[in-house]
């Protein structure tokens, strides 16, 4: 019999409804799994055992009295530690916020609470979501459950590792340049970034405001669609929130790909991509064609400059977003002779090297005399990318590419070389710049037994067709199974 910690959301919800499981039992199962895996994996920064069990008991009372509030009621879920949770420590993996207890819930957290979700705890990330390996955490790295010598990807590596290891049934991440999709690819999960504006950013610690989106990390496409539907929708507390209804994630699941036009982006499917990843990509494309999709090859030349544009826009925004961490009102404070001195010391000591690197980069890009050459130029590139993608979506229903250029790499392999770390997001960044939805689906394992992801991209508000194609790919691909952790097996 399957350990309940390895259930999908759909399986767990069915078991709850059928009375075969209780929310408390499910929660105990993932907590037990965490107690076995955490020493090796370190997916969590905080595990809220008592809060989770209390929420599970409440869910069980609702379910047993026939008042379940929806498909997520009673299901244990992990939250990335950059989402405000009232009364539960939230740090963004930064020393500057160590011990910080938020006085409010972010909108997504509030919605999931109302939907009955059980929060297992807060997961590790690259500090302030800046990184692609979860090694830039002030509280130590997370390891990939598929191979503990490798990274889980990042920045949502903690949520990805928790779901992969079974210490949560699903997780939430945030994606600024690929921070959901790349860890999903590296941990063998489905990871999805919605259209910018569909999911509220209220209560998400901002990295780059014009790029950040919260999204699900799950075992299956259907789970991702359900979790996406629970968190999407207009929020009056976020002025950039899309005012209309969010497109359905579930309505076209199982509808196949027959007659759909699938575009391959040449610039994202060749240079710099690992051979095994390319092979898995081609196999998947062939399967889509065999299933009736029309395959179109496209060129989007501006994507070649996307990485450069991203590394000006995101740091510029973060340089302002992170200015509030100054030791005055909350968080770390290192005293100094003057207020200015206190602020400088607090920030120098409180931020890690990657965060400082990006703040400096962003500050420089916005400086008088440089603004137009850097930030201004990056915005023009961004406009070009949006136009090229819009033109491409005139011809095709979805675009596809590999998600990450290679399977998971070893810890420490890229920490001394920021540029090679930045290359991790080469395929994922364009959709953040264009604001379009994109997701990663696992399509196979490498010869070393590491997962490989496949990216599906769709036009703005194209979630329905994107989930439809992703579900078809899941159906057409071989099941990669679950990682085998010795600590659990023994």
């Amino acid at each position, binding site marked *: 019999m399957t350990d309940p910690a390895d259930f999908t959301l759909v399986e767990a919800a069915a078991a709850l409804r059928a009375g075969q499981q209780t929310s408390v039992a499910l929660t105990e199962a993932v907590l037990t799994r965490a107690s076995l895996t955490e020493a090796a994996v370190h997916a969590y920064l905080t595990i809220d055992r008592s809060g989770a069990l209390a929420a599970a008991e409440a869910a069980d009372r609702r379910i047993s009295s026939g008042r379940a509030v929806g498909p997520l009621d009673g299901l244990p879920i992990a939250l990335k530690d950059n989402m405000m949770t009232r009364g539960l420590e939230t740090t963004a993996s930064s020393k500057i916020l160590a011990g910080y207890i938020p006085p409010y819930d972010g909108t997504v957290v509030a919605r999931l609470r109302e939907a009955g979700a059980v929060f297992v705890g807060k997961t590790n990330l690259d500090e302030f979501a800046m990184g692609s390996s979860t090694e830039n955490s002030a509280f130590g790295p997370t390891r990939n459950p598929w191979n503990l010598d490798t990274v889980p990807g990042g920045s949502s590596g903690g949520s990805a590792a928790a779901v992969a290891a079974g210490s949560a049934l699903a997780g939430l991440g945030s994606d600024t340049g690929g921070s959901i999709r790349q860890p999903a690819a590296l941990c063998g999960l489905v990871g999805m970034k919605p259209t910018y504006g569909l999911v509220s950013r209220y209560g998400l610690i901002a990295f780059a405001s014009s790029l950040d989106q919260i999204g699900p990390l799950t075992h299956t496409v259907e789970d991702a669609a359900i979790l996406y539907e629970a968190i999407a929708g207009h929020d009056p507390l*976020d002025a950039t929130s899309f005012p209309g209804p969010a497109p359905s994630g579930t309505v076209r699941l199982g509808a196949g790909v027959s007659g759909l036009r699938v575009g391959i982006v040449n610039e994202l499917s060749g240079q710099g991509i690992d051979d095994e990843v390319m092979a898995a990509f081609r196999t998947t494309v062939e399967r889509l064609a065999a299933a009736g999709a029309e395959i179109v090859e496209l060129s989007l030349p501006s994507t070649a400059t996307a990485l450069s544009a991203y590394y000006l826009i995101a740091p510029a*925004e973060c*340089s302002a977003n992170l200015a*509030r961490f100054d030791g*005055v009102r909350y968080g770390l404070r290192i005293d100094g002779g003057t207020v200015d001195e206190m602020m400088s010391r607090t920030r120098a000591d409180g931020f890690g090297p990657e965060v400082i690197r990006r703040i400096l980069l962003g500050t420089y890009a916005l400086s008088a005399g440089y603004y137009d050459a850097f930030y201004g130029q990056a915005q023009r590139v961004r406009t070009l990318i949006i136009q090229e993608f819009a033109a491409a979506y005139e011809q095709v229903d979805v675009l596809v590419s590999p998600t990450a250029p290679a399977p998971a790499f070893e810890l420490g392999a890229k920490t001394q070389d920021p540029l090679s770390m930045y290359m991790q997001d080469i395929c994922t960044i364009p959709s953040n710049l264009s604001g379009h939805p994109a997701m990663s689906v696992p399509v196979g394992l490498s010869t070393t037994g590491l997962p490989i992801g496949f990216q599906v991209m769709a036009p703005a508000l194209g979630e329905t067709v994107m989930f439809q194609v992703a579900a078809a790919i899941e159906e057409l691909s071989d099941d990669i199974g679950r990682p085998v952790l010795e600590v659990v097996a023994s």
Partner: protein
Amino acid sequence: MKWEPVIGIEVHVELETQSKMFCGCAVDFEAEPNTNVCPVCLGLPGALPVPNRTAIEWITKIGLAFNCSISERSQFHRKNYFYSDQPKNYQISQFDVPVCHDGWIDVTVDGETSRIRVNRAHMEEDTGKSIHVGESGRIHSATETLLNFNRAGVPLVEIVSEADIRSAAQARAYAQDLRTVVAALGVSDAKLEEGSIRFDANVSIRPVGTEPFGTKVEVKNMNSFRSLERAVDYEILRQADVLDQGGTVDQETRHWDEGEGVTHSMRSKEGSSDYRYFPEPDLLPIEVTEEWRNEIAATLPELPSARAARYVGLGVDADSATSLAGSEPLMVMFESSLAAGAPAQVAANWLTGEVTAWSRRESTDITDSALTGQHVAQLAAMVEANSLSSTAAKEVLGHVLAGEGDPADVAAAHDLIQISDSGALESAVDQVIGENEDQFARLAGGEDKLIGFFVGQVMRVTGGKADPRAVTDIIRSRIG
């Protein structure tokens, strides 16, 4: 050398909306420190701004009142600088596309009217307040700084004039007119002493007859119109002195010291600051559609210039009309006097004359005096009915302003009522004729200049309370 001052004024107006610019917290400066705060205006992690639609409406009103063009789409920017009372360490402001741009107002000084162009009016948020605690209360020796964030995020409109102002008096007139208009719009209580309206002046000088601007100095910390005028005057003279002695003016910010009557350099604090403006990614562009703009325009109250023209139409002289229309308390008193039935020019004379003089002498706002429009109308009626001389009326006005009661009571209490009762006057006249029969015979015989003598005698016996015209009539009737 002869120097010409070139002055621009920057004004910050705190809008008195119910809630703050980007959150639901109340705008209330009386509240206990740090009680009107929330995650947004405290800059907590994860909080996001949502713009206040009323504030956008009100800045549009301000722009329309200053004859500005209104941008259909304008943009919020982040202005980055670290300061402990600024929660996010950036201020949400506007940069290249403000809500309002390219307006003007006409300013009159000593009968001469000049058009001062308004460069822009843009929307931003206020900061919190720092309270420096220490032995002297000064920032340098402070041992502790307390922060109150109740003001953080209050909607602020910055109105920037072009450098069209040419004298300290004109700077003052511009500031006063601007304050009057803002107060008339009802969007701010616009009180200088409470900082809800704040004026900074950019002052430079150039040789008369030349075009290029000199180096400009920003002068801050003026908390009355008088100190604005004094500070600008001082700064003009200081710069002229520096240049006359062969020196150069530094581009800097200077603080006006009201007590010493001088400006001090603040150079230690600000270098050449680079605010690294960039478009605020948390907010969409502000849209003011033509339809909305027209709706807002329809709600504009009568503005001072139009009001002055209306008063002239009622028969008030131009100078008085401008004074009345330009001062909120005078305008309110004048309107209520008219409503109570006072003749326009009579009320205008008293309000711009005795009442204004009293207000200055007593340093008391007219609205804080005991005078009402009813009083003004009553007083005017008494003069009209000859029961008060116009001299006595002015005296009565003084007593009413001081709170002694209504005009009739005051006039009676001070024995200022004219005798216009014909019986009483006739017996007084007959008494005087009886005492001066010789002179009366000469008057009756055609020596007309003696009429003055008889009127004077009647005034003497009535203690000055007789209506001289009525007395004259009675004497003439005795001759005939």
